[in-house]
């Protein structure tokens, strides 16, 4: 549509990047945080200090569930590991007689009266009510307050936009490695361009992998029409892929449940030392009871026998009717590649850094758009409204959203423990803070808005370790001296983010005093093909 293929692709890169940019920034930021979903949950429940003892915790959880929900349809018990040291249990009531059997959706968070955190003696732990790291995970694919479907569609479109932006980005940058080693500081738009390319090229394989797998996962929900070529009923295909657990109707014959711990060790023996991650008991106390044990996926992308089902009365292993098909193995490999549950700490940190690079790539790209057009503001024919809108959203999203997450952590520590639906209140705090930064960036002059919001974000992150030390027993200096890797890591990340935002705020403040650009600005000679064609 432009004079040449490359210029068309340049145009497409600029505009898809801009339109999808803010949502992609949120996806990248939250998704990167969600790599440490469990650790964040543990941090947000400082009451939990139990030592890890999987067998005792599972036994305790069974005692608790037997007393609390003896005639439930299902119990689920998470097996503690070094990322989350206690058991979370949930239970579901039996459906009314005659009602169709329920289909369990494991992604749904059950209401507060159907879940608990229990210790090894079977007593519920009085941990504060919080969504923890699940908030970041849910936000990164469904945008939290939006209806699930709408959020997923928006995320999907943004993801497609990112795929297009990455492809066109590779097409327009022919001198890949030369540009990677180029950085020209203090040259306005040109410096932002160099930064943008560096962040993009630095982790390009990661960006491609994470974008492709993310979009592909959503394809199963939003564009699975290929299945109609082979199946007249889509359910047949989905049942094959998802292997959702169905709860069979109860028989009415009472039969005691076999010891869950015996079944657990039998499963772990089958896996040759593999550990269990989750236990799911169906129809406990009935003759039809089954116990399904999911394997912990640490170090495993996709494998056989990822979950085993046992008879809940006799404890005998029920062999699956068929081996998992290549289809379900392939799709679960894509899922686990994206979710990275398999990653051990070193790899997890590497992926976290790659995610951070992606976040920086999106942010620098969005800023580049405004930096390249600032000169045009001097032309009276150029519309200021659009420019102002982009800059306002840039401040509110790039600087404001991180502030909102810091506010979430502050709220987690500072809100009184007794208030009703505390988990929602925490998130409301974060969003109010975000809204505030949006209003602030809309009413203040642009430079001051940048300085103000970046400064607030820096302050919130820099002070977070101290707020934590004052309000909880974990994370104080004495506690850290004893070696508490999770809290040391969290504090370090928080301080690093704080310093980064503080540097950015100082940078923006210095530029506040620079004279505004003129039409005869030397920047106006940026005449490289890369920068042309975008208007």
């Amino acid at each position, binding site marked *: 549509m432009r004079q040449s293929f490359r210029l068309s692709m340049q145009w497409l890169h600029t505009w898809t990047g801009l339109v999808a940019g803010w949502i992609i920034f949120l996806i990248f930021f939250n998704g990167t945080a969600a790599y440490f979903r469990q650790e964040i949950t543990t941090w947000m429940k400082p009451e939990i200090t139990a030592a890890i003892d999987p067998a005792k915790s599972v036994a305790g959880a069974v005692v608790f569930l037997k007393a609390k929900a003896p005639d439930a349809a299902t119990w689920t018990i998470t097996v503690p590991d070094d990322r989350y040291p206690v058991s979370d249990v949930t239970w579901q009531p039996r459906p009314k007689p005659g009602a169709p059997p329920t289909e369990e959706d494991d992604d749904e968070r059950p209401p507060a009266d159907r879940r608990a955190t229990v210790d090894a003696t079977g007593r519920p732990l009085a941990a504060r009510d919080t969504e923890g790291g699940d908030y970041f995970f849910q936000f990164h694919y469904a945008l939290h307050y939006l209806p699930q479907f709408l959020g997923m569609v928006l995320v999907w479109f943004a993801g497609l936009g990112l795929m297009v932006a990455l492809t066109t980005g590779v097409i327009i940058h022919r001198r890949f490695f030369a540009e990677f080693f180029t950085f020209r500081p203090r040259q306005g738009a040109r410096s932002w361009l160099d930064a943008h390319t560096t962040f993009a090229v630095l982790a390009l394989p990661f960006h491609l992998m994470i974008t492709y797998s993310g979009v592909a996962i959503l*394809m199963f929900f939003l564009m699975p029409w290929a299945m109609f*070529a082979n199946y007249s009923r889509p359910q047949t295909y989905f049942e094959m892929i998802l292997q959702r657990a169905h709860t069979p109707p109860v028989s009415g014959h009472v039969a005691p449940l076999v010891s869950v711990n015996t079944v657990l060790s039998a499963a772990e023996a089958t896996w040759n030392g593999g550990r269990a991650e989750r236990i799911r008991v169906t129809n406990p106390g009935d003759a039809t009871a089954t116990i399904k044990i999911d394997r912990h996926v640490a170090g495993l992308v996709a494998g056989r026998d990822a979950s085993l089902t046992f008879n809940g009365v006799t404890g005998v292993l029920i062999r699956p009717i068929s081996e998992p098909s290549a289809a379900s193995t392939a799709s679960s490999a894509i899922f686990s590649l994206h979710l990275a549950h398999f990653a051990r700490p070193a790899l997890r940190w590497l992926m976290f850094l790659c995610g951070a690079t992606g976040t920086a790539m999106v942010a620098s790209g969005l800023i580049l758009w405004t930096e390249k057009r600032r000169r045009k503001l001097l032309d009276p024919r150029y519309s200021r409204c659009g420019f102002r809108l982009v800059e306002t959203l840039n401040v509110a999203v790039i600087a404001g959203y991180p502030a909102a997450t810091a506010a979430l952590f502050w709220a987690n520590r500072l809100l009184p423990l007794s208030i009703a639906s505390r988990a929602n209140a925490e998130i409301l705090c974060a969003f109010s803070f975000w809204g505030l930064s949006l209003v602030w960036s809309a009413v203040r002059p642009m430079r001051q808005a940048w300085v103000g919001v970046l400064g607030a974000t820096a302050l919130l992150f820099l002070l977070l370790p101290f707020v934590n030390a004052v309000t909880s027993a974990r994370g104080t200096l004495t506690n850290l001296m004893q070696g508490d890797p999770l809290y040391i890591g969290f504090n370090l990340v928080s301080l690093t983010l704080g310093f980064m935002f503080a540097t950015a705020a100082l940078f923006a403040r210095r530029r506040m005093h620079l004279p505004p650009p003129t039409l005869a600005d030397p920047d106006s000679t940026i005449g490289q093909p890369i920068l042309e064609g975008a208007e």
Partner: protein
Amino acid sequence: MATLKTPTLGSTRKRDVASRLCAALFGGYVAASTFSMLVARLVPLPKAGATTMAILTTPILYSATILWAFSARSPSRAWLVLIAVTLLAGGLTWGLIIVRGRP
């Protein structure tokens, strides 16, 4: 592609971009979906495997159609090719379903 006039700003250009955008989003969606159905029929794997394979190629197919919509010489050309792909892939898939059947 190298020999065409620079589009002038204004209503022509706006209509051009709007048409390409619709071609990319809607035309691309339909064309990529239909083509993925053909892939699902043609991949030499068991049915479930072929279907998964086809769904996993849709992100690439869809972004390829988007790139096409914005790189074609004119919007009408973009539409024409997308419609041709849809009809061709759809026709072939339909024919294969009729001839070989599906459960």
